[in-house]
């Protein structure tokens, strides 16, 4: 019997402490066949098991172009993430997926891309950035605007450093007022204000934006003022999920199932959904 609820097993190869409450697992499938067969697109998510405490939904944070390992990043919040946090290198977790739709990176070839990320929303955005950097010649200018609560809360510090050092990527990092340190050389301010200050051009540009709802709410009007239309702005919706397969019935917004029709939506699509998310 083909059991759709049966996860693949993966070993935690490395644990990266990203910030006081966020960590990244570098994972390798226990089974060679699964490792070879497991392919995904940027933006897709998976269900990660901490056996004994259940499953939790996160995006795949590493790039699909990376065939060596996959990574997921999570903030310790609920029962399952607390359980995952207790695991060590060498321990086994379960992975079901990949599920859901993805950012249309192939269709966006030839365009300039503006990445806007806030907090743990950097995880799905990082996946896209790395993917795009591996296909660098296919895209125009790249701009990254990333906001964290404080310097300490910045995740993927090595990646951020790498992006900043590249001449073909414009990288702007900001921390919330009060979150800066004396040696901080980046921006201080909330993401919407920093976007306004950076004034990215909307010409032939698509936006990939993930972050807390409050960030998205206040960044949208700024982007519209600059000249972006709702169909050029891609974001992800997160809802509580159990199955990830369009069956368990809790992630829907109207007749849209976030696990199947999402998690990636354009802002135009979101505007037409019932306001229940």
């Amino acid at each position, binding site marked *: *019997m083909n059991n*759709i609820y*049966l996860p693949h097993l993966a070993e935690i190869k490395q644990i990266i402490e990203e910030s006081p409450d966020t960590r990244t697992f570098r994972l390798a499938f226990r089974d060679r066949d699964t490792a070879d067969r497991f392919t995904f697109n940027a933006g897709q998510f998976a269900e990660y098991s901490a*056996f*004994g405490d259940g*499953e939790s939904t996160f995006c795949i944070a590493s790039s699909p172009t990376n065939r060596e390992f996959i990574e997921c990043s999570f903030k310790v919040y609920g029962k399952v993430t607390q359980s995952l946090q207790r695991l060590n290198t060498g321990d086994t977790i379960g992975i079901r997926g990949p599920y859901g739709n993805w950012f249309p990176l192939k269709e966006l070839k030839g365009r300039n891309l503006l990445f806007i990320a806030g907090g743990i929303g950097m995880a799905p955005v990082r996946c896209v950035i790395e993917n795009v950097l591996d296909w660098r010649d296919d895209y125009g200018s790249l701009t990254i605007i990333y906001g964290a609560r404080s310097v300490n809360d910045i995740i993927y510090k090595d990646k951020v450093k790498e992006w900043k050092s590249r001449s073909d990527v414009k990288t702007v990092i900001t921390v919330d007022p009060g979150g800066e340190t004396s040696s901080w050389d980046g921006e201080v301010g909330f993401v919407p204000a920093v976007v306004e200050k950076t004034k990215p051009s909307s010409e032939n540009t698509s936006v990939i934006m993930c972050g807390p709802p409050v960030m998205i709410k206040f960044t949208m009007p700024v982007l519209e003022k600059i000249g972006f239309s709702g169909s050029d702005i891609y974001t992800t919706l997160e809802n509580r999920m159990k199955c990830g*397969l369009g069956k368990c*019935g809790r992630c*829907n917004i109207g007749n849209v199932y976030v696990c199947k029709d999402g998690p990636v939506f354009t802002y135009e699509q979101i505007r037409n959904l019932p306001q229940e998310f």
Partner: protein
Amino acid sequence: MTEEKLILKEDLLRICDDVIKKGDTLLAPGKSEYVIVKDVSEIKLDPEALPTKISFKSYVFPKSEPVLYYKRSKNDVTLIDADVNGRKIVVLGAKPCDTGSIDIMKDLFNWDYRDEFFNLRAKHFIMIGMMCKTHDEYCFCTSVGCSPVSENGSDLFLIPLSDKEFALRIVTEKGREFIEPYFRFLCDADTKRTEEVLSAAKNPETAFDPDEVHEWLGRNFESPKWDGIGEVCLSCAQCAFACPVCHCFDIVDEDYSYSEGRRMKNWDGCQFGHFTLHASGHNPRDIQSKRYRQRINHKFRYYVDKFGKILCTGCGRCSRGCPVSIDIKEIVSNCKD
């Protein structure tokens, strides 16, 4: 074309006895739920009984079932696939408001990803439906495309002609295969008599037009009507558990020792506040009115949009069992300007 035969009740019970003797499961409506019949003397076959408190849903979609077993040892985890016992289940005398329920849920359990736990069980069902000769103030099958004489979902369909005889209609190939070994019990039908009985069916009055409801729901996601219901509802989800087609579920791990446990798929309900609660504390359906709106929309709008079917059979169980007398028929009838 459906073939019709005549069968005496005593012969029908002989067939049932044979089903039990073969070791297959025979389900029939009991006092408050469908029960596994051990002895044919328990079978009532009463067309004038109201629907049981809960349907046979748990036999195709169990209240709680393991989907896998896990064993932890030091760093490693071993998974053992859960098995489904796909035994034949013969349902005798199911109401027309129940017979179609499996077909309605089948679409959900099979779009894109196929839930074989459901499928393997559904595949082994033999549905012997029976004409319904009663209704109460909660019944509204005729408003959702069903009726007391609907053969929808039945493999075989019984029409009670008297206390002792039934017309037996062979509706599907599966039904024919089941009844073929018992053809010696079947006599020629008196179709005229059957038609007379069918036309005397007591249809519950049509309460609403589902197309109009669908259209109204599309325009009234925000409506003060939802607030009113939200204030009455206790969020106990009795309605979801009693419903023959509500199918939402939870997936939870259950440890039964330090190193072993199982992952369970359990019935859940959209009326529970925690159903959509995020770990962060955010809840898209944070108040009862939103949850009730979801329930009605899911049944009469979203499911129709997705699968072309109404997620309701009109059995009235949710209303009959509601501790605060919320009547879905009344609410849906009021889904109009």
